């Protein structure tokens, strides 16, 4: 069984050690988190892994979760209990955050409804996206006012008008663009970010808004929010697949493989015909040693198009997946008999030829030869390519093969190649069967083809017709 082609079992201990090294020595928290999570997926009962995992996040609630998990595995760990208590004390309900500047601003239409607005319009403005179609005139009016203010360089009032537009339609492209631009210029990036998030929360299908929000969120170092936005973008059917792919690539470059996998799983549902995303999903499964899923997705990439660069990559990778045999296939007597039957048919046809293509002429010797051939073929197949047939291998003293040693794969992970769990015939038994098979097959070939060999090697062959020179060319 080659490490390359078989399904691999993940070594949780190795992953745990690599995760600790990433955190402690490389200071790479995200890589460490990824490795620890993979380790815990394989072995969730590692207390130390949960404790280390708690150090990889700044989110108090998540830290508490990890520590509670560790405590459940080792209730006597007093230090863990104390840490949980301290962290829980710091957890308070989070109010809706607005920047101080926005709170201080006299006209803050997002936090206070516009007092001067007509009551009907106020009601309309309360649910913006739903009223989009009904208020184009109002939006147009506000945008004109904003433009007029902008022309007079009255940014504050222009901003106010754009914000009012956004209350009607939170993803109005022009209003949002100007509002974000000028809020950012005024160092009110958090407010700009909130506007973008509002549009996204309201369900905007515009991918540009997501991208702008992601970029702004990164600058504001709001990692958790940015990750959430990326997830939403990945699942957005209107997003360009290239943009989604780039977003996912940024995770993969930072070794955030599990996060990338989550995004990809959502993205491929939104973009079922995207080869770019499908190949990334396949490669991500590949990287996580989930070969069965990787192979399935490479095949899907091929079905989407075999002659694109992605299709060629997938085909190349699939060709490196020597399809593994399952124990069911190894142990199948039917499959072994099938192989023997192929050889048996060959011998039967030889016998029929030898009998002059007349079954009536076959005679008992040839039929015996065919039978011997079939039995010999079966023994040969058992000895060489099917030594694990059930229950035959068990009856003949076969033993389950030992588990192989772990090896390093192309991603430098220690993996244990999958081994067969069914008995295999010993070499001595196989050699014995092979010897008997060769004798039987030799005897069979002699019995079925003897007459032909005698005719062909007859020192005094019977004459047969060959056209003469004259008959062929009519030349005297």
């Amino acid at each position: 069984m080659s490490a390359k082609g078989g399904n691999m079992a993940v070594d949780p201990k190795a992953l745990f050690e690599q995760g600790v090294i990433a955190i402690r020595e490389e200071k790479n928290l995200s890589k460490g988190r990824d490795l620890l999570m993979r380790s815990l997926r394989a072995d969730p009962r590692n207390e130390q892994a949960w404790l280390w995992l708690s150090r990889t996040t700044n989110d108090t609630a998540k830290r508490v979760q990890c520590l509670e998990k560790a405590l459940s595995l080792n209730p006597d760990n007093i230090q863990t209990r104390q840490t949980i208590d301290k962290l829980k004390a710091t957890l308070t309900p989070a109010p809706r955050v607005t920047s101080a500047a926005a709170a201080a601003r006299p006209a803050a239409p997002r936090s206070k409804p516009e007092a001067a607005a007509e009551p009907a319009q106020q009601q309309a403005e309360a649910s913006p996206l739903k009223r989009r179609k009904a208020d184009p005139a109002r939006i147009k009016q506000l945008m004109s006012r904003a433009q007029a203010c902008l022309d007079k360089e009255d940014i504050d009032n222009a901003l106010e008008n754009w914000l009012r537009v956004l209350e009607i339609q939170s993803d109005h492209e022009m209003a949002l663009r100007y509002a974000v631009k000028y809020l950012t210029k005024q160092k009110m990036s958090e407010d700009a970010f909130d506007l973008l998030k509002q549009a996204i929360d309201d369900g905007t299908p515009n991918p540009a808004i997501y991208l702008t929000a992601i970029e702004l969120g990164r600058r504001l170092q709001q990692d958790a929010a940015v990750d959430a936005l990326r997830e939403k973008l990945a699942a957005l059917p209107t997003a360009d697949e290239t943009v989604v792919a780039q977003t996912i690539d940024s995770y993969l470059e930072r070794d955030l493989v599990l996060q990338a996998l989550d995004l990809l799983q959502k993205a491929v549902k939104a973009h079922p015909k995207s080869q770019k995303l499908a190949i990334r999903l396949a490669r991500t499964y590949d990287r996580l040693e989930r070969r069965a899923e990787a192979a399935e997705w490479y095949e899907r990439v091929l079905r989407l198009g075999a002659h694109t660069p992605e299709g060629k990559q997938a085909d190349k990778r699939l060709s490196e997946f020597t399809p593994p045999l399952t124990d069911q296939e190894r142990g199948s007597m039917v499959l072994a008999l099938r192989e023997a039957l192929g050889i048996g048919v060959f011998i039967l046809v030889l016998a029929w030829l030898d009998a002059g293509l007349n079954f009536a002429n076959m005679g008992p010797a040839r039929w015996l030869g065919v039978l011997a051939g079939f039995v010999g073929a079966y023994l040969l197949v058992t000895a060489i390519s099917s030594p694990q047939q059930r229950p035959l291998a068990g009856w003949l003293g076969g033993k389950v093969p030992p588990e192989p040693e772990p090896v390093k794969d192309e991603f430098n992970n220690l993996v244990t190649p999958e081994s067969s769990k069914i008995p295999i015939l010993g070499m001595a038994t196989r050699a014995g069967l092979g010897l008997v098979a060769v004798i039987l097959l030799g005897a069979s070939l002699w019995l079925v083809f003897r007459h032909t060999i005698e005719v062909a090697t007859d020192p005094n062959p019977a004459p047969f017709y060959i056209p003469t020179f004259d008959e062929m060319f009519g030349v005297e």
Partner: protein
Amino acid sequence: MIGAMITLILFVLGLVLTIFLRSLVFPTPISDTKQVRYGTFPGITILLIFINGLVFAIFQASNYYQGILAVSNGNLGEGVRLLYQYSVQVWTYGYREIFVHESVGIGALSVFTSMFMHADMWHLIGNMIALWTFGRRVEDICGPWRYLLFYLLSGMIAIIGWDVLTFQPNDLPSIGASGAIAGVMGAYLILFPGALILCFWGIGIVLRLPVVVILKLARVKAVEEARLWRWTFQMPAWIFLVLWLVMNTLPSLEQIVQPGTSLGGVNTIAHMTGFLGALLIFFFVRKDVVTRYFAGRSL
């Protein structure tokens, strides 16, 4: 030495040009376009091509081509003598019904000797190109020894089929690997119908040009990076193979129904029956191929 090299280069160029010209109407397959799954070297395919070439070069070519050369040079007597020697080889080692039914000559061994003989260079080249195109992946999916057995069995079925289906006695010898190769082609059709075959095809590459131009003008994404002109043409294997089967089945049926119909020296009945021999392929493929095939998974 340089002269010999130049001669060789000119010969190869002439060969390629002739193949291309012969492919003006009906495509000539030159390769398949997919990679193999099991990573095996196509040793048996190459060995078969080598043996066929060797038999022709050593055993037949000298009498045949020297005879033709002598005749064309005006040396009729010598030329005809050499051509007669060539004919005797074919009558002695080609498959004939009397060898099997009446146990004369080399008997049933002629089934195997005829499989490795060819009438002339183009017969050999045509067959070996087809074997190269279709044989490698069938070998990969069977494993070398099962593939060899399948090849020989297809050849046997092809010639037996011809023998059985020609109801009137026929003592004309039959030679060629095409019956066995028909079996390999049939196996390819069963296992890889959607594979793309690279062909020389004159009509195809000319007709392709306006289609590509129109699709590019319409900004169809699939042809964005396609070249405007190609000397080769890719077609799905099933189209080529079904077309080939039809072209061999129709004249075969005509011959069976009206014995004595001339087929221009081509044993289309053997092609047809050899192709049908491919139904036995599932006795010869690797274990996991059987389960994957019937589970509808990619091979």
